[in-house]
């Protein structure tokens, strides 16, 4: 592994060399403490590539703030070394992703890479970083490929894969008694993967897809599709929309008077962090996600309080993913006591980490994708309340990963 960091000699190298030195060359022993001192005091560079402008700006900010909160809780030290952040706005633009990743890797020589939010940016980023690049932690982007075809020892994800987002929805809806379902989603990579995973579990569970309506991404004129939905008269509709589209969809759905006759389900982003904007329209909407604000566990309560205190805003699932990204990096660095050269040991510590996350228990699969519980939630009085656990320890098949 060619580690181009300034830290030319790794700790393991030095241990071996040190042994050789003590065995033979007395002079070498003079070098030992000096190098160790440099290794311990020099800053660890954490490169952050998240969107701070455009549609995903809020997500980027929350992820960064939560991760920094986690570091701050440990005195801003990683394995005994202070941290230096190199923070870049990804603008969620795929066209610039590789260039920016290169900047972090080649110019800034970062030890860790955290990002991004956008799946396509994620693919360009992972493609550049996998293999020899820095240890990379993905705090949101959900494309299956990131821990599938593109998986690599130095790539981790603390969020979810599209598969994990969609798959638990099928049985959950059947269990709720909805068998004739229309599938509506934004017709882009992420939306398609979530929809495909949903179908994969829904059909075997005895459900029928009345019609699949992919709508152009990122457009938000849903009126024509809602009219079509009304005419199809299904039991329920399963959707994938996020951000502005989710707000608009939920409101238009309610305004079209469809709430009484068709039950609205969706991947968690449909209602996540959008309570204020959606208002009453979201009441009763059921979504599936690996987190809920109201989760009743000590880690969550502690985290939400701390996040509110430092940032002044309420934590959401993105913040949790950022917080866990921070935790994962801490685990790795603490395991090797700050020696970034001990790559294999660090990766081992990270992939075997069991984290007591605000979302519940969090482990990692062989492909470095999270394994976590997924919850069925319902909006009650503007809050996403957990109805039940939709899937225990939901894993990802990591299709195409040969790790």
């Amino acid at each position: 592994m060619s580690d181009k960091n300034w830290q030319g000699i790794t700790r393991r190298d030095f241990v071996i060399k040190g042994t050789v030195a003590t065995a033979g060359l007395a002079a070498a022993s003079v070098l030992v403490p000096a190098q160790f001192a440099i290794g311990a005091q020099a800053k660890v560079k954490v490169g952050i590539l998240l969107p701070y402008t455009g549609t995903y700006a809020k997500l980027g900010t929350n992820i960064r703030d939560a991760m920094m909160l986690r570091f701050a809780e440990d005195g801003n030290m990683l394995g005994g070394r202070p941290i230096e952040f190199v923070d870049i706005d990804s603008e969620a633009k795929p066209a610039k992703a590789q260039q920016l990743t290169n900047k972090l890797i080649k110019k800034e020589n970062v030890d860790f890479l955290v990002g991004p939010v956008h799946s396509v940016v994620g693919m360009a980023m992972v493609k550049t970083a996998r293999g020899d690049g820095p240890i990379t932690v993905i705090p949101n982007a959900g494309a299956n490929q990131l821990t599938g075809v593109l998986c690599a020892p130095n790539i981790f994800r603390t969020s979810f894969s599209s598969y994990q987002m969609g798959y638990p929805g099928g049985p959950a809806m059947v269990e709720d008694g909805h068998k004739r379902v229309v599938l509506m989603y934004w017709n882009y990579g992420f939306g398609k993967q979530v929809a495909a995973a949903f179908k994969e579990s829904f059909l075997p569970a005895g459900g029928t897809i009345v019609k699949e309506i992919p709508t152009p991404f990122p457009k938000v004129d849903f009126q024509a599709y809602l009219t079509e939905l009304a005419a199809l008269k299904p039991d329920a509709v399963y959707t994938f929309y996020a951000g502005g589209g989710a707000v608009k969809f939920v409101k238009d759905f309610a305004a079209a008077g469809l709430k009484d006759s068709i039950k609205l389900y969706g991947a968690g982003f449909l209602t996540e962090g959008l309570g204020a904007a959606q208002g009453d329209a979201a009441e009763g909407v059921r979504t599936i996600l690996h987190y809920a604000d109201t989760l009743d566990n000590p880690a969550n309560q502690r985290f939400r309080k701390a996040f509110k205190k430092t940032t002044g805003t309420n934590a959401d699932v993105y913040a949790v993913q950022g917080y866990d990204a921070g935790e994962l990096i801490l685990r790795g660095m603490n395991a090797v006591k700050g020696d970034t050269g001990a790559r294999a040991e660090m990766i081992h510590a990270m992939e075997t980490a069991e984290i007591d996350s605000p979302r519940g228990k969090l482990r990692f699969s062989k492909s470095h994708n999270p394994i976590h519980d997924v919850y069925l939630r319902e909006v009650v009085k503007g809050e996403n309340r957990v109805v039940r656990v939709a899937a225990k320890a939901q894993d990802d098949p990591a299709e195409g990963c040969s790790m």
Partner: protein
Amino acid sequence: MELSFYLVQLLNAVQYGFLLFLVASGLTLLFGIMGIINLAHGSFYMLGSYLAYWLTGVTGNLWLGILLGLPITLMVGYLVERFAISFLYKRDHLYQVLLTFALILIFNELQQILWGSDVHSVAIPSLLAGSFQLTENQSYPVYRLFISAACIAIACGMYWVIQKTRLGMTIRAGASNREMVQALGINVNRLFAFVFSLGVALAGFAGMLAAPVDSVYPGMGENVLIISFVVVVIGGTGSIKGAFVGAMLIGLVSTFGKVLVPEMASVMVYALMAVILLWRPQGLFGRAA
């Protein structure tokens, strides 16, 4: 699908067309009268939406919000015209494209600084919050009908102003022959500043009206911008009538395109534009160059 389905879709199409018209009419005014390509038009639409969100929050009432917001959009329009656009009247379109492109960048950042990056929404005023039953399971919000009504009122108002008033005559004359208007001793600078502000206010007003049914989010202006350009070009630059017909055509094609050929829905609109321009290079109601 039964007939009622298509009727409801027709209603959707017309309603969408009206909203498009409101945005595009401001654009075509600027095009036709001032010869200005204003890429920042979508940004003014976004400004309107954010103003509606902000002022409705402050005053607790959408109507008050619109009342306070309109003068702001007029003022923004006036300032932009005086400090940027007014230098470009005699220059190539190229520079207008570039300058207004830069304005988009600036307005996007300003939006970010002023209002952050959250998605917001604006409550429908209680007076219009109801809905009526359309089919056995679908109802239609009254507010959407109100938007259509408002658009019709504005269309009629614009028609009246342009066809019947002195100001309208000046505007029409200016559109066909700028030198002549100057020769008639009319202060073209003032006329242009006024028309530009009016165009901006129209875009802003459309954004305000749409805020309760659309959500308010970063980058919303650009979704509207390109489609408005398509409307204007189909209709023929400078023609209010053209903008109306173009908006309705786009409303129909995009609504029924979504239902009938979903996989090509986005392409259809642009294909329509290409076909119309092949047939009539100056647009449906544009004067030959």
